[in-house]
């Protein structure tokens, strides 16, 4: 009897069609596999299969010293490696009870905000590509290139930067650092207008994103969604304001929030976040304090036994590090709360009742990086 009822649910009494999306698929942003239960093109349920990119980062941490583990965190969210590094360094600093010098803090803030812009640019380009707009991707990559050039000049690497060290910075900012950042920020205001021209008022774009993947504030909190997804639902929660870290308490910036919690709102929130990040960078380069760049940390790090949880506002949401120390040079346990992994839970809730094409838009708007989901 129950089977009959289930059959009637679908059109023409036909069985549900199970469509495997991924792990090789152009728009699952890596190796995500989604099992879609379909009635025609309407999604009746989704099931995420993850783990294709699992490298056991947390286990690796237990066999590395604190400094040795730092480059590994860059490989989690590889489009926002600087933010990952910041979270890890600050967590270990908290465990060691040392503080980075003011100069290091400001440079960290600039780098992290540039990384936020770069991460959002990758999101915007791929999201637009998923919805079928080909051109924004290349414009976004053009701007991201400028940011990566700054990273390259600063620390020699572009993607997995390992830009910071526990206790401060390894490298002094190069000579024309401020000038480069300023030139980028000045340029970026004009460039961001190009994306707005291409997408914001476009009726196809609005039709594809408005009322798609709606997630209200209560759902967001229940599912643990954070970052732009939470803010697009109208919750004004940003750790840069709520629990200021690095040098964020020194700068003025707004936290953009949305109202409907749909894909279009998330798009608007992220666009505004890029503008705000640009403003933070401009404020920060005005006045970079002089002084040392590395705090008082020894060559061998032996934090006292204990545990610590530190979280930062990464581009994709709240990135948390839980570190347990047993007093040796290696952490006893490291647990990472990656924003992508937690946000991905919302996929089923958001995709149900929509069409296949919307699933693609929703995966795009969740802004997941599989390196971080699987770790």
């Amino acid at each position, binding site marked *: 009897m129950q089977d009959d009822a289930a059959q009637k*649910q679908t*059109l023409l009494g036909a069985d549900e*069609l199970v*469509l*495997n999306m991924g792990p090789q*698929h*152009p*728009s699952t942003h890596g190796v995500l596999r989604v099992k879609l239960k379909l*009635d*025609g*093109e*309407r999604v009746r349920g989704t099931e995420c299969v993850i783990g294709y990119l699992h490298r056991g980062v947390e286990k690796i941490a237990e066999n590395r010293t604190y400094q040795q583990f730092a480059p590994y965190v860059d490989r989690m969210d590889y489009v926002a490696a600087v933010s990952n590094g910041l979270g890890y360094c600050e967590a270990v600093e908290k465990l060691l009870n040392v503080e980075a010098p003011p100069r290091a803090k400001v440079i960290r803030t600039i780098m992290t905000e540039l990384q936020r812009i770069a991460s959002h640019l990758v999101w915007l380009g791929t999201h*637009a*590509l*998923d*919805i*079928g*707009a*080909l*051109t924004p*991707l*290349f*414009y976004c990559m*053009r701007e991201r290139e400028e940011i990566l050039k700054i990273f390259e000049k600063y620390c020699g690497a572009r993607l997995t930067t390992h830009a910071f060290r526990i206790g401060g910075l390894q490298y002094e900012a190069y000579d024309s650092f401020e000038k480069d950042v300023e030139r980028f920020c000045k340029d970026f205001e004009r460039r961001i207008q190009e994306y707005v021209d*291409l*997408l914001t008022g*476009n009726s*196809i*774009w609005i*039709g*594809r994103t*408005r*009322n798609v993947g709606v997630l209200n504030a209560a759902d967001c909190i229940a599912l643990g969604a954070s970052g732009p997804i939470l803010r697009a639902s109208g919750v004004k929660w940003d750790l840069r304001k709520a629990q200021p870290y690095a040098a964020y308490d020194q700068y003025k910036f707004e936290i953009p929030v949305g109202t409907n919690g749909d894909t279009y709102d998330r798009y608007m929130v992220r666009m505004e976040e890029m503008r705000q990040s640009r403003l933070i960078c401009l404020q920060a380069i005005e006045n970079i304090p002089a002084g040392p760049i590395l705090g008082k940390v020894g060559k061998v790090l032996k934090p006292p036994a204990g545990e610590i949880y530190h979280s930062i506002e990464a581009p994709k949401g709240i990135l948390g590090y839980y570190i347990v120390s047993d007093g040796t040079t290696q952490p006893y346990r490291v647990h990472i709360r990656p924003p992508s992994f937690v946000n991905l839970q919302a996929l089923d*809730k958001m995709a*149900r*009742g929509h*069409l*296949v*094409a*919307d699933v*693609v838009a929703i995966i795009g708007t969740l802004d997941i990086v599989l390196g971080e989901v699987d770790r």
Partner: protein
Amino acid sequence: MSPTLHAVIAFLQTWWVELVSGVVIVAVVPLITGYMVLMERKLMADMQARLGPMRVGPHGLLQPIADAVKLLIKEDIIPDDADKMVFWLAPVVSMTAALTAMAGIAFGPAFEVARDINVGLLFIVGVSSLGLFGIVLGGWASNSHYSIMGALRSTAQLVSYETAAGLALVSGLLMAGTLNIRAIVDAQYSSGVWFGFLTPVAFFIYAVASIAETNRAPFDLPEAESELVAGYMTEYSGFRWACYFLGEYANMIVVGAVATTLFLGGWLRPFPRVHWLNWLDAVPALFTAAVGVYCALRAGKQPVRVQVWFMWAVALACFAVALILAVPLAVAPLKFMVPGLNGAFWFLLKITGYIYLFMWLRFTLPRYRFDQLMHLGWYILIPLAIVNVLAVGVAMILEMEYGWNRWLALIVTTILTLATALFLLRLNDKRAAAATSAVPPEGPATEDSYAG
């Protein structure tokens, strides 16, 4: 002269145009298709702040050849569970339909395979629609979920938009009063104005519907890369895939040719009856010569000697074409060739412009969702096309029975049609707002997108 030679000449006089056109269609269209792809990639690169293909030949000019060779020698994969016969047949059907449709097209007053068939336009539209079978069969035979979904989308989309396109064509045909390609262009010559200006609404509807018919962005849902991987072509590779590809691009030429013939004056030059603009007849020769000069100037700047030679070869080819176009203008006994050659030039130029529009839209716009696509087709384009057919009919009666000025009548009817369009759009917005708020997250489907 011997009677045999006479017979041969007589035979050639009757058949040479058809022969040349046929050979061009079968042998050269694949090449043209390759270069359309190159043009598309280059234009896309230009709009996206990058260079596009640059490696094979100067500025990637030999890229299509390299692509074709690659596709030909690629391993031919047929999935185990596929219906092998149908899998083999489907791309052939698709390509054959597109190439056969070209037989009906007149590339200028002199070049047409099926000369003077009475149902010319109907033949083109009908035969090119047969390509749909290739898509459906291919999607079904692949035995893959993505393929079948792409094929289903394609069927629904093509059937819907074929209707809109057909009704838009009817508006134009009402004015021409015939289906014969040559007579349609002659009618535009005698009316002195292209039908596209007399029925802008019909032209617009046809332009939109023809984009959908050829599966181009923003209506490229059957092969939406980011959703269905490659739609009905997912399981195809190598030469079979190339057949589909060829059919698709050949179809673009076909719809471009239909739009040009019916709405853009066919092979007529701009303002064909304004005599002080007769110097426009020299434009084809001058234009090709200018392209040749440009290539010659660029030749010196090529980095590799092969590229320099290639550029010179292109320049010389352009000069040769320019000469062929220019000689009949200057030499009185050859004057009879002018309309044919110039007609072909203008016709191809108009098709190129039309296809450029397609490409431009593809680079600019995001993709429609399936239900939105169906709404646009059934709730806006088709009603609009019907109203427009009626309005054009009324205008014809006003002109013939009551002696209204043609332009006056058409301005009135166009305004009427546009008002209907606005009304439909508002209605659609209201419905869309109601529909989105009514869909509960887990509720049953409120409408069936495939119902159309």
